[in-house]
């Protein structure tokens, strides 16, 4: 059963002004419970606009968005969505404000109406989840931490609220590899152990290749391909994807296909790419004989 469903979702910024911009154009997709759903797209492709519809921060100019079967156009339903849908924005460390890490995490929990030991328990658990030692960081001001650790704290802020849908906008952009690994691990763990649905936006395709169950490919506000990973990568070969960070072996396969070689571009791993290339070369040799 889909937990998030969009139908012909169109979003126009500054409608009716000279700066009018269509950020999303008739996007229809559905995301099932427990899935890790990856959204790929270059800057300005509408990824961030799309995910802000999932927790009701934005409402469609046209079309509908349903979360848990309820239309987000309904104000009262939209205002309760933040408890179920945890959204982490791009560069979330820039939104930290409290004087200690504990207060930072407690902000969301207090807004949920929790108190006392429940808050302490959740704070500790969330910090462990993202790979930070609660004893070390809990009394430190968040702005005194390193960039990577701040990102981990920001993720912990969302995880502590125990959302059933986790939406992440470029969670690993601009952090060091070790923090990035902790973040991805925490996300995967959350999906496995709590059967959470995860929507993750990235233009680092490498992050999503193995993590995601399904993918969507956005370009200039249009949903060009969506569904099974291999199908999406195959479809991507038809479009100009120079603005995305694709793994080298996928780039090679796309180039070979563009040259007119009969390679199958429905592949994910380096090994599959190697096997496909040798298969095509063997076939060639056989034909020449």
């Amino acid at each position, binding site marked *: 059963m889909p937990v998030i469903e969009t139908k012909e979702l169109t979003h126009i*910024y*500054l409608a009716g*002004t*000279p*700066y009018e911009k269509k950020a999303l154009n008739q996007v229809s997709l559905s995301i099932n419970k427990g899935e890790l759903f990856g959204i790929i797209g270059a800057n300005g492709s509408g990824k961030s606009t799309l995910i*802000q519809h999932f*927790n009701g*921060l934005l409402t469609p100019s046209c079309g509908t968005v349903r979360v848990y079967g309820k239309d987000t156009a309904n104000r009262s339903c939209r205002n309760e969505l*933040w*408890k179920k*849908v*945890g*959204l982490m*924005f791009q560069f*979330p460390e*820039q*939104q*930290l*404000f409290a004087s200690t890490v504990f207060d930072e995490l407690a*902000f*969301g929990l207090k*807004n*949920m109406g929790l108190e006392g030991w429940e808050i302490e328990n959740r704070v500790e658990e969330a910090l462990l989840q993202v790979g930070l030692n609660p004893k070390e960081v809990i009394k430190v001001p968040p*702005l005194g931490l390193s960039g990577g650790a701040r990102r981990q704290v920001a993720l912990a*802020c*969302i995880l502590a*609220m125990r959302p059933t849908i986790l939406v992440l906008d470029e969670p690993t952009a601009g952090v060091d590899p070790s923090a990035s690994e902790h973040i991805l691990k925490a996300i995967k763990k959350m999906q496995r152990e709590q059967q959470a649905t995860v929507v993750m936006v990235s233009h680092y395709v490498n992050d999503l290749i193995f993590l995601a169950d399904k993918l969507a490919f956005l370009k200039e506000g249009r949903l060009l391909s969506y569904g099974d990973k291999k199908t999406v990568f195959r479809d991507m070969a038809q479009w100009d994807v120079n603005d995305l960070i694709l793994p080298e072996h996928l780039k090679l396969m796309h180039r070979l296909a563009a040259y007119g070689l009969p390679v199958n571009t429905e592949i994910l791993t380096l090994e599959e790419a190697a096997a496909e290339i040798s298969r095509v070369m063997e076939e060639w040799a056989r034909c020449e004989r």
Partner: protein
Amino acid sequence: MREMITGQYIMGDSIIHCLDPRTKLIGCLVVIVVAVWPRQTITILLFNLAFIIIVIYFAEVGVGRVLRGLRSLKLIFLLTFICQVFLTRGDPLWSWGSIVITRQGIDLGINTFLRLLILFLSASLLTMTTSTLKISAGLESLLSPLKYLRFPVQQFAMIINIALRFIPTITEEAEHIVRAQKSRGAQFDSGSLSIRLRTVMALLIPLLAASLQRATDLAWAMESRCYTSDGQIYSRVYKLHFAQRDLIAMGVISIVLLLAIL
């Protein structure tokens, strides 16, 4: 950004857009001085307002859009009007207990309302039709005689330029932070004062931190391009050019001024 900010620059090539920024600055100043001149009659204010509306029409920025910008100021308009009406003494028109409405009060209320309207419209018309670069170039040129009094004209123009330039950026940033904190359950419209205070802190602190960071970055960027404040002369991309149309515009402004004075 979700909505246009009132007074945000709108690109265009109307007659008003093409005028020299100095003409527009002087025109704006004239209209404002006429409007705030003490003991101004309502007729002159209405005449002034009509002039501005005609200019808005020629600027092709949409009279409706400009007027829509007024919505955010309705409370100020209403409050000043009410204060003037109830707090002015004179010939009573109507009274109820200690509350007295006087003819002078109503006169003054309408008068103040029109003045505020003119101030708002003329200033937003200026920024809607003139890019920040041109405004600062115009200011610098108009204020240049003050150089002889050792007034740092160029730095002043640069400060104005930077301030205007960053209004949309900071607004956008604030919107972004509001949305981020809303997804953590921040209630910006809560009834409780303590909750509201906590929520506002969640907006102000990151916004302040980001602004300071941005200011530092900008300072470094300017310094690395050899910007100094010791009175060097910098060349400009936009050369100001006082054309015939500016002369005509100045003529129109002078007539408006004369009519207002007479």
